[in-house]
């Protein structure tokens, strides 16, 4: 199975938004599962042979009883009883040895298939573009990877065997009964059609309620996930009553659908139970007549009581499997949907291979929006020569982060093109693109792991000294060295034990360590860092950024004064550009921004400048 995921023909590619609407048929679903099982054809074949053998042997057991009753017991020969007892024993042991064998084999196969499925699904998720992650809650993806696959585990390692063995046993018993005594057999089949009809009838209802149950559970989980995530806000703004009410609604619904499921299942199980008794009554009555009239023996009657019981057992068991199978199938459906989503931002089939790495950035009439019809960047032209340091300023919502995202190709443009070194980013290989551009975001993420691992991104080949060096340049070593375990301090999920500013310092160190020659895009990467630290970073960066193409988005104008060129953005367009002096001279938006931030009373200027 390739890392790019299975491409099942006959289904079109879906985008994340179309994801919910597309219907997934059971047939398609089975084909998907079949694809993951196909490497194990031989083992599965053996399993089915084993299943067949077990079914035949199970059918033999009641027949042995019939033989013992009609033979030695009727004739009164004690010595003849013993071989039957031993034969019965041997058959039972054989059945269990075989059963253990095929279950062992099937579970191994199932786990191997699931391993492939998990790997494929994970790689598939990782392959998606940022737009996908923007619209898909994390919890949903985690649920796909854990709960849904878990449900499939049951299906692949237990349910399939159960269903197959039940079916075979059912067929085997029916055949055996017909062979032994067709009249008695037909009598005991009387309730069978009713039973099958009832199973189908309830299956439909159970499937519906089970689907509803899973929806309710999913909604509940996503609700509490969000509430727990925002608990601080809930509490600070006295939102507890609303939060409570929301949960209560989900909780009630959960109980309601649970109760509904139980009621339906109880009704179904009761019907099955009464039908079983009626079936037995038919056998006893008809068989009793048969014995009296001479077309049946007592041994047959006893074995048919046992056969009838065993015939209904697979049906009852199948019905119990229904819930499990429904759960697994709806989980499989969700996984299939997920495997169907195709990223829109994908590497070109035949990426161009730039021979010389020239790190220029060009925007050619670029228009871009996250939602159709709501562009956040309009018709933007921009050329950044290699080695130029560019700053982007502008009001919030002006499109600065979007611009950064386009350079890193987190998104594809709606119109126009973005070029790096003269090549459209869409034509570059992912590898080349990533070696060419490094974006440090506003809200950097810290992984569960040590600080050093967060800087090296779990790359063991990077020596500790280089990690520390990068941390020093990013001025992160100051706070790291005050931590109890220095670079080996474990971070909580999401870096919860660091402040936002500290996380930004880690992200900066990370960026400095990896791809040191790429175009560096800092998207408000130091917004939560104090000016003093930031200035220290600047000093370090100044050395590093010498001759490196870079785009710095910042609100603190002090951060960007020394860049070669400043772009001022407004509502998705570049409205002014030039260096600091030029823009001040222009006396436009930048000059206004600048004055707001820096105008001080002049008498203060003089003494402080001496202290610097």
């Amino acid at each position: 199975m390739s890392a790019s995921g299975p491409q099942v023909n006959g289904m079109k590619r879906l985008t994340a938004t179309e994801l919910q609407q597309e219907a997934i048929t059971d047939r398609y679903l089975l084909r998907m599962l079949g694809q993951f099982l196909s490497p194990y054809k031989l083992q599965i074949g053996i399993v089915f042979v084993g299943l067949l053998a077990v079914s035949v042997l199970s059918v033999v057991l009641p027949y042995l009883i019939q033989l013992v009753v009609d033979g030695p017991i009727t004739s009164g020969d004690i010595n003849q009883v013993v071989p039957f007892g031993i034969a019965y024993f041997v058959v039972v042991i054989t059945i269990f040895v075989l059963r253990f064998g095929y279950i062992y084999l099937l579970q191994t196969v199932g786990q191997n298939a699931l391993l492939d499925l998990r790997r494929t699904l994970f790689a598939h998720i990782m392959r998606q573009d940022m737009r996908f992650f923007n619209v898909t809650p994390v919890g949903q993806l985690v649920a796909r990877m854990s709960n849904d696959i878990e449900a499939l585990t049951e299906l692949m390692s237990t349910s399939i065997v159960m269903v197959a063995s039940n079916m075979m046993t059912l067929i085997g018993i029916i055949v055996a009964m017909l062979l032994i005594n067709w009249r008695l057999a037909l009598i005991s089949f009387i309730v069978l059609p009713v039973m099958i009809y009832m199973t189908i009838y309830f299956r439909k209802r159970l499937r519906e309620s089970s689907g509803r149950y899973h929806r309710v559970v999913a909604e509940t989980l996503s609700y509490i996930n969000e509430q727990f995530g925002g608990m601080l806000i809930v509490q600070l703004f006295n939102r507890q009553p609303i939060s409570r009410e929301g949960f209560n609604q989900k909780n009630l619904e959960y109980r309601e659908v649970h109760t509904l499921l139980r009621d339906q299942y109880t009704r179904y199980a009761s019907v099955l139970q009464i039908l079983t008794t009626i079936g037995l009554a038919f056998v006893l009555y008809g068989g009793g007549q048969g014995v009296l009239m001479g077309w049946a023996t007592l041994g047959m009657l006893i074995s048919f009581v046992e056969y009838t019981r065993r015939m209904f057992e697979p049906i009852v068991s199948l019905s119990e499997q229904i819930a499990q199978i429904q759960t697994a199938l709806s989980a499989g459906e969700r996984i299939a949907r997920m495997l169907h989503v195709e990223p829109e931002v994908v590497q070109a089939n035949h990426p161009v291979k730039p021979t010389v790495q020239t790190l220029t950035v060009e925007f050619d009439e670029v228009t871009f929006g996250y939602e159709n019809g709501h562009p956040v960047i309009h018709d933007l032209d921009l050329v950044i020569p290699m080695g130029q340091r560019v700053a982007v300023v502008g009001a919030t919502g002006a499109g600065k982060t979007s611009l950064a995202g386009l350079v890193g190709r987190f998104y594809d443009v709606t119109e126009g093109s973005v070029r790096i070194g003269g090549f459209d980013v869409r034509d570059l290989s992912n590898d080349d693109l990533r070696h060419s551009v490094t974006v440090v975001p506003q809200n950097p993420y810290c992984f569960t792991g040590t600080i050093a691992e967060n800087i090296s991104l779990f790359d063991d080949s990077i020596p500790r000294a280089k990690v520390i060096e990068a941390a020093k340049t990013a001025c992160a070593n100051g706070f790291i060295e005050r931590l109890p375990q220095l670079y080996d301090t474990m971070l909580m999920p999401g870096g919860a034990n660091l402040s936002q500013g500290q996380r930004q310092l880690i992200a900066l160190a990370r960026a400095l360590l990896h791809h040191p020659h790429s175009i560096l895009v800092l998207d408000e990467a130091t917004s939560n860092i104090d000016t003093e630290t930031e200035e220290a970073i600047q000093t370090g960066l100044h050395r590093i950024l010498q001759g490196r193409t870079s785009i710095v988005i910042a609100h603190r104008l002090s951060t960007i004064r020394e860049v070669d060129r400043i772009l001022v953005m407004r509502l998705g367009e570049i409205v002014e550009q030039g260096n600091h002096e030029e823009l001040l001279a222009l006396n436009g938006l930048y000059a206004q921004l600048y004055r707001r931030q820096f105008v001080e009373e002049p008498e203060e200027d003089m003494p402080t400048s001496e202290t610097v």
Partner: protein
Amino acid sequence: MQIVSLGVRSVVSDLAGVVVSGASNEVQVPVADMRWLWAYIMRHRWDAVGAFFTGVVGGIATAAEPFVIGVIIDHVQQGVRFDQMWGDIALMIGIAIIAIVAFFGMRHFSGNIAYAVNYDIRRDLYENLLRLDNSFYQRQAIGDLISRIHSDTEMIWRLLAIGFNRAFSASFNLLVIFVLLAFVNLPLTALVFVVLLVSTTFQIRAGAALTPMFEQVQDQAGKMASLVQDAISGIQTIKTFGREDSINARFAAENIEYRRRWLFFKRRNEPVGMLPNMISQSTMGVVVLFGGILAVQGTFTLGNFTQFLLYLGWISQSLLQLGMTYQRYQQTRGALTRLTVLIQPTQVASLPDAVPLPAPHGDLRFEHVSVEMEGTTLLSNVSLDIPAGTVVGIIGPTGCGKTLLVSLIARVLDPSEGRVLVDGHDVRTLDLEDLRRAIAYVPQSTFLFSAPLSENIRMGKREATDEELSRAAHISRMSNDLAQLPHGMDTLVGEKGVMLSGGQKQRVAIARAIVRDPAILVLDDALSSVDTRTAADILHDMRAVLQARTSLIIAHRISTVKDCDLILVMDDGQIVESGTHAALIAQQGVYAHMAARERGDSRVDAAVSEAEPVMEEEVERVRSSS
């Protein structure tokens, strides 16, 4: 639905954390155990009685059925007439109907208890989670909390459903069967029961031995889920640095380990699970052998023979159910231990005799406040007096304790030493709801709920009018962005909604605070992603609206705080300088230093100002106005 447990950490360490942090007030730590669960069950005692009664009836009726079948076979053997058999058949059906009715009732009552108790417990747990303070949430991974409140409570209903449903009926079933069979043939009955009891006992024992292996499988599942969560949350970083292969490899390693543990467990669990069935089937061989011999000898009728064969199935079924109940009981005990963490009392709560704060003024006082965490002093001996209406700016390096200082006011956490007073009352003595109503706190990282934008703003004040809403949107300058959003104020935001920029999110949070119209406003670096100009506009307008309100503004830009009535400069958990902008500049200390740095090379500025007459004018204007 099985939610994998993300809780890799042991419960004991979680508990220890709670106990240590709450050591000052010696509260009895509540424990979720069987007694705790019993209290919930007792709220539905009539259902329990119903379940018991129907269980007993069902157990007896079910046990009678095979006996009747045996009698019928004997009748057939003795050659009764057809019409006589009608009575037997009617009896059999009659018993079946009683069994079904009892079965129905049993499931009804047991279901009532199980779902009601599950509902009550989940409600109470959620209620407590709404109270638990921030330190709790910082320690717990959300995935783990979810797994506890969902999967672990599911364990409880599973136990109750089967316990009240099957355990009674199975016990009575066994009892009746034993008595009936003992009358037929005591030695064979004793043999059958002993064999099956031994196998059940073995199964329970083996199950206990397998539990740790199962937990290892669950742990590994948790590890995998955490890795997935981590990878997805940090996807942008992974993509930027092209670490997909590395994360795929890390996942593959965990994946393979999971398969190993799963198979290791299953290969031991499967035979144990199959054993009872095998034993009961083999016992049937014994019945065939001895029953056959007895039948030949004539002490055993064919009906008895059939009864034994049928009962064997019943007995192993009942024993299986009892074994399962026991297993569920064990699992539930484990689940309850995990729930204990969720019923811990919060460290931050109103006292029983809490002082109400109906009309807060916004006077703030810090008296020798220190905060210590895990042995490190994060805030040391801070004293402050902030009269109502003061606008306070707080500035200082990353990690110096600014957030900590302001979070004490709304009791996000309580100080280790000293007191924080609002309107002259220690915040710990105030009614928590009133206190928080008096405060609008905008934390550093913004959290928006998956709800319309208007709803997210209205979170500040539920009964806010549309005018108040649009005023808040205007002041926060969110109004400028509405045109860009697909549905304006009704646009769905948050995790499931449209993507807002960092600055937009911050401004929604600000609007939320404005609409609250608080006595005390706390902005914790809440304008960091907002451009200077917009930030200044927002602060300016806010000041007009929040006149006479106390405001605390944490910022990194001098420009954001320079107009404050009082500026606090913090470093390393202490306030190192305080005063107005002018005073602090005059003081020539840390602040003046910072201000100079932010302005950058002032000589360049001077040069520019000379070259730029408009700028001169502006400076003049500012100077004359100040």
